[in-house]
């Protein structure tokens, strides 16, 4: 079976999760590598979740939030953006390609954009190859 990446996606309830639902109701087709977790706001996504996803064997983590200015809670997405940049720098130091973590803005009406994002990000992660993090952790202990 050729390598199929597994991607954990954190979607904010008001914008990107609704956008993903819209992609569903419009019967758009996209890659099935993404597993979606609903959070109330992208600001809720704690770096611990991202690290834990990689520890559990995820090959990529996708965080989607509302476009700046559209956040249902006004500023949650900005907080997420700040953490995203720091996390990416930390990833590079830990030998993880910074593309393994991706933050994108998806609004409630952007079903198509979500479907295309999933396909393109799956491709990106596939090109990066499987993430060795889980395997390293297991051989360590």
């Amino acid at each position, binding site marked *: *079976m050729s390598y*199929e990446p*597994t991607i*954990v996606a954190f979607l904010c*309830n*008001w*914008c990107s*999760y*609704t956008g*993903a*639902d819209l*992609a*569903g*109701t419009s*019967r*758009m*087709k*996209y890659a*099935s590598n993404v*597993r*979606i*977790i*609903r*959070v*109330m*706001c992208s*600001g*809720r*996504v*704690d*770096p*611990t*979740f991202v690290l*834990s*996803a990689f520890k*559990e*064997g*995820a090959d990529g983590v996708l965080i989607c939030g*509302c476009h700046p*200015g*559209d*956040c*249902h*809670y*006004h*500023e*949650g997405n900005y*907080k997420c953006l700040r*953490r995203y940049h720091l996390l990416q720098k930390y990833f590079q130091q830990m030998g993880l390609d910074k593309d393994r973590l991706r933050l994108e803005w998806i*609004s*409630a*009406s952007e079903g198509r954009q979500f*479907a295309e994002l999933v396909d393109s990000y799956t491709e990106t992660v596939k090109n990066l190859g499987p993430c060795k993090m889980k395997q390293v952790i297991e051989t360590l202990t």
Partner: protein
Amino acid sequence: MEEEKRIGVYVCWCGTNIAKMVDVVDVAKEIGKLPNVVIAKDYKYMCSDPGQELIIKDIKEHNLDRVVVSACSPRIHELTFRKALQNAGLNPYMFEMANIREQVSWVHTDRGEATRKAKSLVAAAVNRITWHESLDKRTVDINPATMIIGGGIAGISAALEIGNSGRKIFLIEKENKLGGHLAGVDLTFPYMYSADQILKPLIKQVTNNPNIEVFLNTQIDEVFGYVGNFETKITPGDGKEVELKFGNVIVASGLKPYDPGGIENYGYGKLPNVITSLEFEQMLKKGKIVTKEGAEPKNVAIIHCVGSRNKDYHEYCSRICCMTALKFSNQLRSALPDTNIFECYADIRSFGKGCEEFYAQTSRKDIMFLMFDQKNDLPRIRKAETMDECDMLIEFNELLSGEDIEVPADMVVLMVALEAQENARDIAHAVGVSMCGNEFYIERHPKLDPVATTTDGVYVVGGCQSPKDIPDSISQARAAAARILATINIGQVEVEVTTAVVNEDICCGCQTCVNVCPYTAISFDEEKGVSVVNEVLCKGCGTCGSTCPTGAIRSRHFTDKQILSQIEGLMSTSIELQEV
């Protein structure tokens, strides 16, 4: 966490919507093997009454304390199933949904892969629900007063509807008079009623209705609180600050006309006789249609879709300009019988009641209808040479005849688009409403719930939600009024309970969280030296939970433990299954 959990898992067929792409029977069987899962069933329609009865029966028989339903999106049926749990005497928050329809069966093509993904999502839900705790709904009283932002036709109609039913209204208008755009309109389509005859009596009713308090020249800056208990401070024209308390908000802030100066093809601002539809309405109200030079125009051209239905300006259709243009043609024809009238249009949109007949009747009044390509070839207006005996010439390729034509015009009326107000974003932030790309307010559901918003107690009506004509605006205003009167009648409303809570044994008082909260729900308790969350203001976004370096803030129903275990569940099955 030691006591044993009894979880019931239900995998829905949703007719064929899920079952066609996901092997629901296999999912149920596989999930049945997970720890703490007492029963795992698949069923045709979980959301149907028999489906819900199945859950209630199982809860009682197997004394389940947690229920997982994997079916459609929680945004659709989470409330339905929570009510079912409540009926069975179980706390509604001991429930979790796995979305295997919108986010699995409808969007994937490989049945094996879809089934595997469904299993991992359900396993994740099962893992998550082991950490769920019961939360009790909070109900709050409703302040029967209502604040309405915007004194246009929508705002006035809503104010009267509620005011006449004996409830208090605060009507906030940023201009110095009520009426909004309708005040600047002469007649209304399609039956040519006079706008003033509609508006003046309504305004009179508003001003002498004791329940309606009008604040002119006033803008909103910040609204605090939540459904039933909002408050704000406003400074009306005369400067002294007024504190308002109210239970619901209706946003009727309306729209603003598009400034056509941005389209250089039309030369608005450079060519004196190129005017907007509003300026033409003023002329009609004064009863004299004359060019800037004071002469009666021999040729009048009306250009549609100015700033609408074009990527570079606004992609949406502003809905009311076509009928307004036809109204202008009728008024022009009766005012200036032998003037040449040209309607340069992209498509005539006459969808309203009586409008198609209005269009048919207008086109028989010897009015020349010329079609131009709205997307890539907007008409160009230029000064005519003296020998053309008209002030301006409009050039474009007329689509119906395929000819490149020059339309003579002494006056050009631009049917300008309608766009969001400048202060639309401030009002949105003040009342906590989200906006779409065109800065119109987003309704709770475009089809099923067009006047409410995702923020309880805040309603959006009229133009500010998207361009619409008078009857639609009034009906939306009345709909919102009816919804509010209904909630006031009940007197209480349930409030979000998935709020954040600070564990005071761990919080070290570093105060990193205090300014993170957009609703200032977190404050620092000096004596105890810890932060405290005002659950009344907290809207449950969870940002403070992930900011707290000590991990002392727990976001109820979205705790770290719940999500971490959900991640574990998500990854556990997918890896094993991949190897199998």
